[in-house]
């Protein structure tokens, strides 16, 4: 059994895009709740305790976002109280709560996504779309530390020569400009040398392909199929308007029928899938270890 993050980058990307896309375009509070529960459960099962600062900042952001809407928007018919001649309505408050849940749940999913998808995996996905773009990106990723090192070297040598005083603001701005100038010239020349060397080795002779260490296995295809089927059910329920939930002017929920419930259950399974797999693999691991 493999956890989600050991699968092929493309199937991971499809999974996350489906989960976040549905959460982003839905207005139904039940869906928001499902998305939030799934994201937090997966975050906790994957990372354990800790990350206290991040959770705290998300709680603060949640409060701010939830309270922002009723202060700005005055739609809705149920007036709770009046501040400075501006009515604060129940509908606007609930709408803000709903939006805040959506945004925070997506921020959790995104945090998980960037924890799982390291830059090398993202390059693999870009390589499948456009090998040339992936090449540019991976070269830039390499250039960043290279330039930083070079800037440090240039800076040190300029100081050693005795060009600049360190206690003078104007002088230090001059120094930074000078170092930047030197590094830029060096970087462009270095780039040309890189290009020459690439050409000498036969770049641009054939069609560019991309290298990937991730094979597509059986589990990848299973995950892709599950994602497509479940999100398909959910999206079609949304497209048929079974999940539209109106806040203004009055809260009106649609009549729940089998289709809407099916979509919600589908999305529920989809968001809970990674935490279930994660727990399952942990159980399996403990079980195998206890046998030894």
């Amino acid at each position, binding site marked *: 059994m493999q956890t989600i993050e050991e699968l092929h980058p493309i199937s991971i990307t499809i999974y996350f895009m489906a989960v*976040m896309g549905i959460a*982003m*375009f839905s*207005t139904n509070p039940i869906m928001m709740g499902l998305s939030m529960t799934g994201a937090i459960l997966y975050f906790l099962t994957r990372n354990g305790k800790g990350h206290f600062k991040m959770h705290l900042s998300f709680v603060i952001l949640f409060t701010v*976002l939830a309270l*922002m*809407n009723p202060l*700005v*928007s005055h739609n809705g018919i149920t007036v709770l109280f009046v501040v400075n001649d501006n009515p604060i309505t129940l509908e606007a408050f609930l709408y803000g709560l709903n*939006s805040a849940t959506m*945004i925070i749940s*997506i*921020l959790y999913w*995104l*945090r998980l*996504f*960037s924890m799982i998808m390291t*830059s090398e995996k*993202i390059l693999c996905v870009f390589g499948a*779309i*456009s*090998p*040339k*773009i992936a*090449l*540019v*990106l991976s*070269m*830039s*990723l390499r*250039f*960043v530390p*290279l*330039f*930083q090192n070079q800037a440090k070297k240039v800076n040190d040598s300029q100081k050693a020569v005795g060009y600049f005083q360190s206690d003078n603001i104007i002088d230090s701005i001059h120094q930074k*400009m000078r170092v930047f*100038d030197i590094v*830029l*010239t060096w*970087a*462009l*020349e*270095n*780039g*040309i040398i*890189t*290009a020459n060397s*690439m*050409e000498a080795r036969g*770049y*641009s002779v054939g069609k560019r392909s991309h290298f990937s260490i991730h094979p597509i296995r059986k589990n990848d295809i299973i995950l892709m199929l599950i994602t497509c089927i479940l999100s398909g059910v959910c999206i079609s329920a949304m497209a048929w308007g079974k999940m539209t939930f109106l806040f203004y002017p009055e809260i009106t929920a649609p009549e729940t029928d089998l289709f809407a419930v099916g979509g919600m259950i589908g999305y529920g399974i989809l968001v809970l899938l990674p935490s279930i797999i994660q727990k399952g693999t942990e159980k399996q691991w403990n079980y195998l270890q206890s046998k030894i």
Partner: protein
Amino acid sequence: MIIIQNSKLRHFLKKIIPVVGFPAFVLMGSTMLNEKYHLAISFLGALTALLLFVTDFEKKKTGTRRIVVVSVMTAMCFIGRFLPVLMPMTAFITLTGVYIGSESGFLVGALSAVLSNFYFGQGPWTIFQMLAWGMIGYIAGILANPLKRNLILLMVYGAVAGILYSFIMDIWTVLWYNKGMDWNLYRNALITAIPYTVSYAVSGILFLGLLAKPFGEKLERIKIKYGI
């Protein structure tokens, strides 16, 4: 990716999609559909624009030197984003667009958004940042001749680009929060973003004023000497 064999049809599509298809798509989306679809429409529109550009770039034969120079400039933008208050990215992207060409300007803008968001956090907003910065570079490339000749004009362009960038990203913030466009929320978002907008505009003027000459000379030299 998408391959259309017939070259006449391809040229026709290349002209018709950005000039007629895209505005029609946006207008239709904003007038005919319910306002809660605005987020979906803007998202899909931005994504298609980027995909069209990428497929075009992928199919075209680009010189190796140009590719490497683009990645050098992208790395420079990435490092520049770490400066505390000021934002030299707009200036770098503008200069790339002016001196190397509009396509390279777009690429540097779009890719430095992806690259720096490895550090600052990827998200759905990456797509809008890619498009906004890419357009700054692309338009700078189109206006290359007047901008090259007149430094004041270049600085004005930098300031306007910074302000427009902030405005576009605030539209996205409102759409994300509210699904549809809400002018009240948008005004509030703009007001809370005033320090950022000012910093973008000021750094556009400052960096273009400071760097236009040395930067431009270097890019020009590389271009003439090595024939990019």
